[in-house]
C-alpha cells in the first residue's frame, strides 16, 4: 500500500516537473508528423487520434496478410517434411531449422538492409511484365474500378452461392444414392467461372494504372514500400517455420493404426487423409496454431525498428516522444494487444470445448 502511494506521488511530481499532461486529451490534438503508409486519409494536420487509427489499420493489415501467407507456407513446409521424397523432406527441414533459430529482428534487418536496399535505383528497376522492383519498393498495376464493377462483385457472390448449393446438392445425392460427385473442385471452378462470366458481360470494367518511370521516380501504379515488404516477408517466413512444425506434429500425432484400419477397409489414400487423418490432426493443430497467429500479431511490433508505421512505432514511439505522455500511450498499446489476445483465447477455449473427443 505504502509502496504504491510512494510510487504514485513520485509519478505526480515528475510529471508536473516535466510539464507532461495526463489523460487522453492529446488524442484530439494535431499530430504534426507524417505517416508514410496510410490506408485511410491522413496528413500532418490530423489528430493523434487519427494517427492511432491509421497505425492500428497498418498493424491489422500486415498481421492479417502475414497470417495468411505464413499459414500457406507453413502447411506446405509441414507436409513437405513428412514427404516420402527424401530431398524434399530434407530441404523442408533445413528451412524450418534455419528460420526457427535465428532472431526475427535479424531476419527483418536482413530483408530490409541487405536485400531490399541492394535493389537497383528507379532508373534501373527490375521489371517483371507490368511489375517493377527497385529500392524504393515494389510497384504493381493499380486497379481502377469503374462503373460496371458492382456487377462483377455481384457475380462473385452469385458464384459463391452456386458453389454452396452445389456442395449441398452433392451431399444430398450421396446420401440418397451413394454416388459421389467431386463437388469441392467443381465448386471452386464454379466460383471462378461465374465471376469471369460477369467480368465479360459487364465489358471488363477495370482499368489498370501502370507504373512507369518518370523523370526521377516511378509514377502511377501501386507501391509496396520496402518497410512493408521486409516486415511482411520476415513475419511470414519466420512464423511459417513454427507453423510447419505444428502441422507436422499434428499429422504425426494421429495413430498409424487409424491409417491402417482405413486402408484395410478399402478406402483409397486420398479419402483416408481427408476423412480420417485430417479431422484428427486438426484437433491437435488448431490450438497451437492460434497461438502462433497471436505471436505474429505481436511480432508486427518489430516493424518499429525499421520505421514501418505500425502501432508501437507511431503510438509508443513518435506520439509518446512528442507529447511525453508515455503512460497513456503504452497503456493504449497494451489495451489493443490485450483485447486481441483475449479474443483469440476465447476463441480457443470455445474451439477446444467443441472439438474435444467424447470419452467416458
Amino acid at each position: 500500500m505504502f509502496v504504491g502511494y510512494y510510487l504514485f506521488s513520485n509519478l505526480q511530481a515528475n510529471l508536473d516537473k516535466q510539464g507532461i499532461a495526463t489523460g487522453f486529451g492529446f488524442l484530439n490534438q494535431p499530430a504534426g508528423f507524417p505517416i508514410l503508409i496510410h490506408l485511410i486519409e491522413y496528413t500532418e494536420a490530423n489528430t493523434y487520434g487519427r494517427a492511432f487509427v491509421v497505425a492500428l489499420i497498418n498493424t491489422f493489415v500486415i498481421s492479417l496478410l502475414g497470417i495468411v501467407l505464413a499459414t500457406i507456407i507453413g502447411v506446405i513446409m509441414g507436409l513437405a517434411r513428412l514427404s516420402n521424397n527424401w530431398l524434399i523432406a530434407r530441404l523442408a527441414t533445413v528451412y524450418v531449422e534455419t528460420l526457427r533459430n535465428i532472431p526475427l529482428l535479424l531476419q527483418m534487418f536482413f530483408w530490409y538492409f541487405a536485400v531490399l536496399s541492394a535493389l537497383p535505383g528507379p532508373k534501373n528497376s527490375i521489371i517483371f511484365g507490368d511489375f517493377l522492383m527497385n529500392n524504393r519498393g515494389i510497384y504493381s498495376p493499380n486497379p481502377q474500378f469503374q462503373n460496371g464493377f458492382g456487377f462483377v462483385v455481384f457475380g462473385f457472390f452469385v458464384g459463391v452461392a452456386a458453389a454452396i448449393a452445389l456442395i449441398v446438392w452433392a451431399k444430398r445425392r450421396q446420401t440418397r444414392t451413394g454416388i459421389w460427385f467431386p463437388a469441392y473442385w467443381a465448386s471452386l471452378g464454379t466460383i471462378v467461372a461465374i465471376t469471369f462470366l460477369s467480368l465479360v458481360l459487364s465489358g471488363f470494367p477495370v482499368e489498370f494504372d501502370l507504373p512507369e518511370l518518370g523523370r526521377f521516380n516511378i509514377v502511377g501504379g501501386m507501391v509496396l514500400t520496402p518497410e512493408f515488404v521486409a516486415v511482411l516477408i520476415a513475419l511470414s517466413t519466420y512464423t511459417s517455420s513454427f507453423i510447419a512444425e505444428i502441422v507436422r506434429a499434428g499429422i504425426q500425432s494421429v495413430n498409424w493404426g487409424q491409417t491402417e484400419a482405413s486402408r484395410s477397409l478399402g478406402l483409397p489414400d486420398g479419402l483416408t487423409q481427408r476423412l480420417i487423418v485430417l479431422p484428427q490432426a486438426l484437433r491437435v493443430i488448431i490450438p497451437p496454431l492460434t497461438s502462433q497467429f497471436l505471436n505474429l500479431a505481436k511480432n508486427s511490433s518489430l516493424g518499429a525498428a525499421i520505421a514501418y508505421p505500425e502501432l508501437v512505432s507511431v503510438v509508443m514511439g513518435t506520439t509518446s516522444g512528442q507529447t511525453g505522455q508515455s503512460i497513456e500511450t503504452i497503456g493504449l498499446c497494451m489495451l489493443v494487444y490485450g483485447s486481441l489476445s483475449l479474443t483469440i483465447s476465447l476463441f480457443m477455449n470455445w474451439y477446444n470445448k467443441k472439438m474435444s473427443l467424447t470419452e467416458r
Partner: protein
Amino acid sequence: MTKIFKASPSLPPPVNSVGPVAWIRQNLVSTPFNTALTLISLYILYLLVPPVISWAIINATWDGESKADCTAGGACWAFIRVRFDQFMYGRYPLEEYWRINLGCILLIVLIGMYAIKVVNKTILTTFILIAYPVIAYLLFAGGLLGLEQVETELWGGLFLTVLLGIIGIIASFPLGVLLALGRRSNMPIVKSVCIIFIETIRAVPLITILFMASVMIPLFLPDGLNFNKMLRVLIGITLFSAAYMAEVIRGGLQAIPKGQYEAADAMGLTYWQSMLLVILPQALKLVIPGIVNTFIALFKDTTLVYIVGMFDLLGMIQLASHSPKWLGTTIEGYAFSGFLYWIICFSMSRYSMTVERKLETGHKRN
C-alpha cells in the same frame, strides 16, 4: 517320433530391394510426382548453392582495412575479422577484455565442477547462484580493487547478449515459480493478482514491456535517483520471461498426480515444505524441455534491446555495417551473427529434445 526342425538360413534381401539404387528408387523417384519433385528440388539447389559458395568462399576477401579492399562479387569477411572484438565485447575497452574472459572461464570451470564427484552439489549451486554474480559484476563493472570502472553503456556485443540471456532466465526462474504457485493458490487476492500479471504480460509484445521499463520506471522514482538503463532493461526482460516461465511451470505442477500433494500433506509438511521437498523437484524435472525452450525464445528476444538503445550482438553489427569504412557489408554482418545465433539456439533445442526423450522413457508406464 519327434522330428528335429531344421530352420532355414536367413538370406540377404534381393539385390534390387536394398543398396543405393534401390534407395534412390524408393525415396526419390517412386512415382512420377515424386520424380518431378526431385527434379524441382535439384533445380532449386542448383540455383542457390553454387552462387552462395562462390560468394562466401571462392570470391571472398579475408584481409583488408575497409570495404574498398574487398572484391565486388565476394563476401567481405575482412569486415568480420577487423571488427570481431567489437562484436564479441561491444564497446568495452580493449585493455580490459581479460576481465570478461576471466569471468567466462570462471563460470565454465564452476559448471564443469558439477562433473566432479567429490564436490558438494548444494554448496556449488549456492556459490554459483549467489557468489558468482557478485564476483562477475565486480569483474565486469570494476570501480573496486584497482579495477578500472567500465560503465554498463559500454557493455555490448555477444557478451551483452549472453549476459542478458543468462541473467534473464536465472532471475525469472524463482519469480516464475512464485507466480505459478500463486496462480494455483486458494487465496483469491493472490490468485487474481498472479493471473492478471501473467495474462497481461503474455498478451503484449516484449517491446512494450521494454519501453515501459525504459521510459516509465524513471517516472515513478524521485528525482535524481535513476536506475541504470541496463538494469531497467533487465527488469523488463525478467518480468516478461517470468510470465512465460510461470505457465511452463504451471504445466508441470498440473502434471503431478494429486496423490503426491496428498501424501505430502498427510506427512504433516507445511505448504512450503511440501512444495520445496516433494512437488517442485518433480514438476521442474518434467518441464526441463519447456524451460529450455523459454530460454531459447528469450535468447532470441535479447535482440530487441537494440530498439531501446543498447548494443547487443545485433546492435553492434548494425553499428559497424553502417560505419563509413564498411558501408555495404550488411549481408556479411547478418550472415555472421545469424550463424552465431543459429548455432547457440540450435544446440539448445537439440539438447532439449534429448532431455525430453530421456524423460519420456523414464516416465513410460505401460
